[in-house]
């Protein structure tokens, strides 16, 4: 989902930067406040960031014959709320833009918007919806993480199609092309991300049942110590 350096027209690059900035600013405030009130959650926040670091470094093959990577933003969105992922996403994307020439500074705003804003908010919304439909914890986490991942890539396709509408078919034709590159490739990877997120939640729930209960993620009695 990384739009390459320089591959968004200037006005789009600035526009997405402006759109992402308030999320990053408010997210930073929320994270700081949360850590001040619950210093013991500092390490868990590190885990959420680390999970994104690991997953976004893994370029996995897909059935479309190209490689892409999961985003890992679902875990943090469920643990700390979607807004907290905006500053974490900024750190990860900045690291990749500066050292790896993966993504870029001019496309940072757009990439934050897709990976660290849309993805986490979708994941959080899906999780709440799934829980209110009385789906099990594991199934809810799976749906949340995979749909969040997929929607990140759909967002990237929208961003590129908006910036580069097809000369004949316009926005929709262009969107279909970019979605063919990003969204289809992503389907199996989104499933992998969902499964891996359930896996890490299992590990967290096994050893930190109290913390997950405090965060109101699981209902009492749902996690056996």
């Amino acid at each position, binding site marked *: 989902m990384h739009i390459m350096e320089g591959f968004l027209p*200037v006005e789009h690059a600035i526009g997405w930067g402006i759109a992402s900035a308030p999320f990053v600013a408010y997210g930073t405030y929320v994270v700081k406040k949360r850590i001040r009130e619950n210093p013991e959650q500092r390490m868990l926040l590190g885990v959420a960031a680390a999970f994104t670091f690991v997953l976004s470094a893994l370029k996995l093959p897909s059935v479309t014959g190209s490689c892409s990577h999961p985003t890992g933003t679902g875990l943090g969105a469920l643990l700390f709320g979607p807004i907290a992922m905006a500053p974490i996403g900024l750190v990860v994307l900045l690291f990749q833009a500066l050292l790896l020439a993966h993504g870029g500074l001019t496309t940072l705003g757009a990439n934050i918007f897709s990976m660290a804003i849309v993805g986490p908010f979708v994941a959080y919304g899906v999780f709440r919806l799934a829980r209110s439909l009385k789906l099990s914890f594991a199934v809810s986490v799976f749906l949340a993480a995979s749909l969040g991942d997929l929607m990140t890539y759909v967002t990237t396709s929208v961003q590129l199609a908006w910036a580069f509408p097809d000369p004949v078919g316009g926005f929709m034709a262009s969107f279909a092309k970019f979605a063919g590159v990003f969204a289809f490739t992503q389907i199996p990877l989104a499933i992998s991300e969902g499964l891996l997120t359930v896996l890490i939640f299992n590990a967290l729930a096994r050893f930190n049942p109290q913390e997950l209960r405090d965060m109101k993620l699981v209902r009492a009695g749902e996690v056996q110590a």
Partner: protein
Amino acid sequence: MKRTQNIMLILAVIILGVFPLWYVQKPAPDANGEVAEIFAGADDKAKNLVSEINPDYKPWFESIIEPASGEIASLLFALQAALGAGVIGYYLGVSVTREKMRREALRKEVR
């Protein structure tokens, strides 16, 4: 049990990762005898698509540092994953020990 579920999850992820390697066939060489690359990055494909849709578009900014080679790039990606995995492993290690000590303390109290 959770253990069975975890093993199933890991297996499913491995299958999802390996299946494409078997499923996607190498395309036949073109007229010049060159074989198109498979499993290239989707980001690169999108870049090519931009040039296809709008051949006049010129990227207006270049990456400040470009990894010197593919090897260096994979070094940095491996480093990124290793850092993340280290943090997660540390946290799980701490959690396991804390849980164990809490149980032991509980047992002592009962006695």
